[in-house]
């Protein structure tokens, strides 16, 4: 049996993988770019207001800039720096240029230094050559080679070409071009100047002190000298030393002043992003929370990120304030509820309401079960830390390539990891379902919130459905053809054909308020003031709220299952062994209850395989009518707003539960029916 189970589970894993690939493919191939969809989920004003940069950034965010399944050239530090340098020289696209500049300066930082310094020489040389050529052309404009020079200038600097009326003479052209000398020179020098800006930004506030408007050659020389003097400070050995010193320090500075005066931290910041891989490793391998915090704090400082795994006094105070607010709201809520009750009571008794006569519950009663400030704050602190850890991992998945030149083995695995599917799947297997486009909070949180509600409804509904359906089915098969059978058949048939949206609406109309009966509530699973109830009051209130939605969910199921039961039972009752049992003189109850029922339950078990996914599925219609934020509604809304992460997560979970349900019902078969065995 265990072997069989193992086999089935393995098969299941395989199937799930297949489903995930399929799921992924469907979303990838569905019309519309998910990045555009995400941005569009928010901007309803037509696609035209999505600028190119927004789109590109969002694509990067979801790894849509990567290949789908296999990445033959996963980026490394060297290739990233080279690609960013290319973007830095993109004359056509200013946004992209700015972006590259910021990335080199702020994100890749010192990690790029040793690759950037050697770039300086060629760039300056190139600028010098181009400038010499420009001067030559400008001089030629006044001489015999005028036409040729004009053509050459127009070709090289088309964007700056003067607009002169046709037939203008050479002198006019020469003058017009000469007026452009300054912007032209700037354009020629731009690549080298941008690189200088990047370098200065990376090592600021260090670096050679250069006067304003310094010549390119001079700047190059100054930088090369500076680099030869300071190179050792950015060498791997030194970086290692600095990181080690920081990690062994034991304790992070508590205040900003202390941080500013901390020598180890200052050394770390000076080394900059070069320290990131070592710190990240230290954070992952940390044996204690203190060590983890030490590494995270350092990493936050070098990578410019706020996730330092520390919650300072200010943040704690904010949490405490939040607790105060919620506490005050709770007290106010209870008092309001008491007033309302007093008003109702006064009205019912025909007296005038006297505010001074309201009996308010004591503060102790109100705050029973309300978390203490300490617990509340520590919960929030834990939440914050968990968020920080998550952010680090999420960040590192891509950022690693800014800092590390991978070896062959890593590059091979990265070939699969650094793809759209790889990113999605690597998160899926650790149950990270991503973040909803629309609600901007973790999908798992959304699903869990909704699942709690759906589960309550469905467990009760399915339980009730089986509870009534089985006896009903047995009854109508045993009493086949009697009036009772006919009445139940007709009623169930009618029930089965009533659409649930109509039934739900009718239930609300009839039972929830004037002009008809006012027995049950029409919305939500609890009263709005339910938190002011006692535990028992809360429980009965919940049951009270469940009645109508459960009724609306149950009746259809009931009709279906009892029909199945009836058919199954009829088939069994016609069998020889039943006749034998009857002939043996066994009492009717034993024949039906023992011999017939057990065998007739087998087809019902098949139905039960579907229960698991059903518990999860929820009903759009019932949940909408009764304002219950269950999974059915969440799923429906996510489809309408094309919230892909949410859609995919729900699909994957449903697929998993369906497979599990089939497995469970197969096992149940074998348990119920001795003729079936595991193989």
């Amino acid at each position, binding site marked *: 049996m265990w072997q069989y189970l193992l086999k089935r589970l393995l098969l299941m894993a395989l199937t799930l993988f297949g489903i995930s690939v399929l799921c992924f493919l469907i979303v990838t191939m569905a019309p519309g770019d998910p990045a555009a969809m995400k941005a569009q989920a928010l901007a309803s004003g*037509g696609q035209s207001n999505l600028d190119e940069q927004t789109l590109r950034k969002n694509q990067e965010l979801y790894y849509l800039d990567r290949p789908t399944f296999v990445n033959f050239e996963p980026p490394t530090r060297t290739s990233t720096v080279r690609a960013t340098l290319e973007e830095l020289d993109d004359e056509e696209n200013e946004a992209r240029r700015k972006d590259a500049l910021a990335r080199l300066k702020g994100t890749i930082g010192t990690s790029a230094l040793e690759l950037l310094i050697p770039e300086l020489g060629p760039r300056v040389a190139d600028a010098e050559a181009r400038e010499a050529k420009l001067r030559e052309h400008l001089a030629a404009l006044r001489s015999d080679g005028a036409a040729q020079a004009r053509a050459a200038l127009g070709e090289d600097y088309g964007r700056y070409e003067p607009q002169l009326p046709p037939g203008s003479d050479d002198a006019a052209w020469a003058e017009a071009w000469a007026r452009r000398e300054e912007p*032209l020179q700037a354009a020629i020098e731009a690549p080298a100047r941008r690189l200088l800006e990047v370098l200065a930004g990376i090592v600021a506030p260090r670096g050679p002190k250069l006067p304003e408007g310094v010549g390119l050659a001079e700047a190059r020389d100054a930088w090369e000298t500076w680099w030869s003097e300071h190179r050792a400070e950015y060498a791997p050995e030194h970086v290692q030393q600095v990181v080690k010193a920081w990690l062994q320090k034991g304790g992070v500075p508590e205040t900003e002043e202390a941080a500013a005066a901390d020598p180890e931290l200052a050394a770390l910041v000076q080394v900059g992003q070069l320290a990131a891989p070592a710190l990240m490793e230290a954070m992952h391998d940390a044996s204690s929370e203190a060590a983890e915090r030490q590494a995270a704090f350092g990493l936050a400082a070098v990578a410019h990120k706020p996730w330092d795994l520390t919650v300072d006094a200010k943040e704690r105070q904010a949490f405490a304030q939040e607790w105060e607010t919620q506490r005050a709201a709770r007290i106010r809520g209870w008092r309001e509820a008491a007033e309302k009750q007093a008003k109702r009571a006064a009205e019912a008794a025909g007296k005038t309401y006297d505010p001074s006569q309201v009996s308010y519950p004591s503060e102790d009663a109100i705050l029973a079960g309300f978390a203490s400030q300490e617990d509340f704050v520590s919960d929030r602190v834990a939440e914050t830390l968990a968020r920080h850890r998550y952010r680090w991992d999420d960040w590192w998945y891509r950022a690693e390539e800014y800092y590390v030149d991978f070896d062959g083995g890593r590059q091979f695995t990265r070939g699969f990891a650094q793809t759209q599917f790889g990113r999605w799947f690597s998160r899926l297997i650790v149950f990270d379902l991503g973040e909803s486009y629309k609600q901007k909070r973790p999908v798992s949180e959304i699903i869990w919130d909704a699942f709690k509600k759906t589960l309550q409804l469905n467990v009760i509904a399915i339980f009730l459905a089986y509870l009534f359906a089985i006896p009903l089915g047995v009854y109508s098969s045993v009493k086949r053809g009697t009036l009772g059978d006919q009445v139940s058949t007709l009623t169930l048939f009618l029930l089965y054909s009533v659409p649930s949206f109509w039934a739900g609406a009718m239930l609300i109309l009839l039972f929830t308020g004037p002009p008809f009966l006012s027995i049950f509530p029409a919305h939500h699973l609890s009263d709005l003031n339910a938190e002011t109830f006692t535990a028992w009051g809360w429980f009965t209130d919940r049951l009270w709220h469940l009645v109508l939605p459960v009724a609306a969910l149950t009746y259809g199921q009931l009709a279906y299952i009892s029909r199945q039961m009836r058919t199954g039972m009829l088939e069994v009752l016609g069998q020889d062994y039943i006749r034998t049992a009857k002939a043996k003189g066994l009492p009717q109850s034993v024949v039906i209850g023992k011999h017939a029922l057990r065998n007739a339950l087998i087809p019902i078990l098949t139905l039960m395989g579907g229960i698991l996914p059903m518990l999860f599925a929820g009903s759009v219609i019932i949940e909408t009518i009764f304002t219950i934020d269950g999974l059915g509604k969440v799923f429906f809304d996510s489809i309408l707003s094309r919230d892909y992460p949410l859609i995919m997560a729900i699909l994957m979970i449903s697929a998993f539960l369906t497979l599990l349900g089939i497995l469970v019902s197969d096992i149940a078969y074998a348990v119920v029916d001795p003729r079936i065995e595991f193989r």
Partner: protein
Amino acid sequence: MRNWTWALLLCALGVSAQDLAGPVPVDAFNPDRDRPVEPRRGGTIQVRTPGDPSSINPICDNGVSTQDVYQYLGDSLAIRDRETFEWLPMLARWWKEQDVVVLADGTRHAGRLLSEAKADPVRFAPQAARYTFAECDLEAVERVGADGESQRVAPGSPEFAACWGQVVDVVPKAETGLPRVRGTLERPPGGRFTVWLWEELPEDAVLSLPRSEIKRVLEGPDGAKVEVPALRQLAEFELHLRPGVTWHDGQPVTAADVIFSMNTIQNPVVDAAHLRQYYVDLERYEQVDAATVRFAFNQQYYRAFSVIAGDLYIYPRHRYEPWKFEGDADGFGRHFNAHPDHEQPIGCGPYRFVRWERGTLIELARYDGWWASNPGGAPVVPWIDPRMPYLDTLRWVVINEKTAAFKALQLEEVDADFDLEPAIWEDEASNAPAFTDRFVRAKVLSPLYTYIGWNADRQDVGPERQIFADARVRQAMTLLIPREKILRDIHRGLGEVVTGPFFSQGPFSDPEVQVRPSSVQRAQMLLDQAGWVDHDGDGIRDRGGVDFEFDYVIHNMRDYHQKVAEIIKEAVERVGVRMNIRKLDWAVFLDTISDQKFDAVRLAWGEPSCIETDPFQIWHSSQAGNRGNNYVSYKNAEADALIMAARREVDPVERQRLLRKLHRLLDREQPYTFLLNMYTLGFYHRRFRNVRFYTIGTTAYNFREWFEVPREER
């Protein structure tokens, strides 16, 4: 030059003042309105909402419910008075507005244009500005009296009335930080509380600029040519923040917060594409000092002030710690999008956030540190009662289903519902005394209209099938569609037929444009003229061998679309036109519309304000194709010119003239058949008073001013 006032304009155009701006009646729908009660603090309102917002962060979420809630959590720099439309200082205490001129040598002056923009030479007073501030911030003004003596006049004194339109020296109250400026004192059109001061400079400081010296085409930072108008009116703004305003966590609101908010919106990773489009012409913005921000636009745009002062959401910088993402704007964008504060926002408005149980309710409570509140004391600003906001608690209760919502009202589980279906409005129970004794029935028009768009450039068919490219055909369709019947039969008469895209009670709708009555004969005549005649005798009109047959697409989100479609189908089939109704799923429907693969569609446009309206997105030819909002591909050179002129026009009177002209043009051309403006229907409990319904604002009602009357006094 700018001595016009609304009154003048109204006389000239023969419109009654009520149509444009003016007092909005208080408690208009409440039978108790004639029994005056003193406003007081206290009480709770529970208002029903059909669905949760996805977050309470209007920067990333343009859902209506997000804005509904956020308007009480945050204040803007300035706000338009919902009755007079004048700009009232809120977080900004005062501001100055300047014109900009760029000279051929690249010199840029911000100051005041003194002559006509097209004059030659242009007279320009550099550094001068138009100041806007509250009259209550004025200590006195000094003017030279008839006797040549300098005379000090305090606001409110009888002599003060004579100062309007005169050159005076203003003496502001010391704490305002306003400079002492000499200029012409003026009341903004229709205004009650604020003052415009047109700064005057001595004659020798005024520049006289020949037109040839004003640059036509500017060059961008790297020499590339960029079209930027070199003379632009009201294109630079400097706003000074009110001291002492705090966020709900006690931190002060500073200029850094304003700049941070603007930076955030401009960050391409932040999901604010819907807001970013308003700031494409924003040339630069900067913090001048701790309480001053400056914005400069590179276009002259009538909404410039509105988008920075009225529409800019200001967020607390200290909560987001952007300095920790130095050099990593993308990282900050992601951090911002998913920031936990968006589930429990911190603002600077009259209410602070208390709790949000998703799918159930959102609760806000009055923030006692709100800058404008001063219970029992003097008003901080004359347009806000210092006891405001009156209600202690605002709660939005989610109830999806409309019947359940109505039951909840009847059981007084909720106090108000502004998302009613006509069926419930007409329901006997909601008209019975048992209900109306307790609830007020409110019916108001807001700027929103439904229409049928006729696609002039369908993407998936050839030129011979572009049926609606011809204005005569569109006119004929309008004449055929029985709009009154649709209003009566489908919408139970709860609305009015509209003639154009502008709100009928707003300034831009031309009252001379009449509703075109249905006329089958005239429609047939027009179709004949356009060449659509039944040549082959099969009962369907045709032209060039193509039958007059079109696709009318509807979506499945509301039931009545099918019924409307059938009424139209019946009407057009009578004259030999075949109409196919295509019902689509919402997402597919949207794709079909943006891909322009349809002939006709019924949709609606709405906007929060009837006076900021900019027809550019919907009607300008540049917005056709490429999934823009002009998805019927309406292209008309005259309309384009009117739209662009109106966009640049900072003079409201001239803008009104241009847009009314556009209204008449659209009426002639009928790119849409304009259908109806449906009433916003609402029920609210009778115990709430001081209720007004406006035509501008996020919602027609404003809970800031509602208060509750105890049962005994009703």
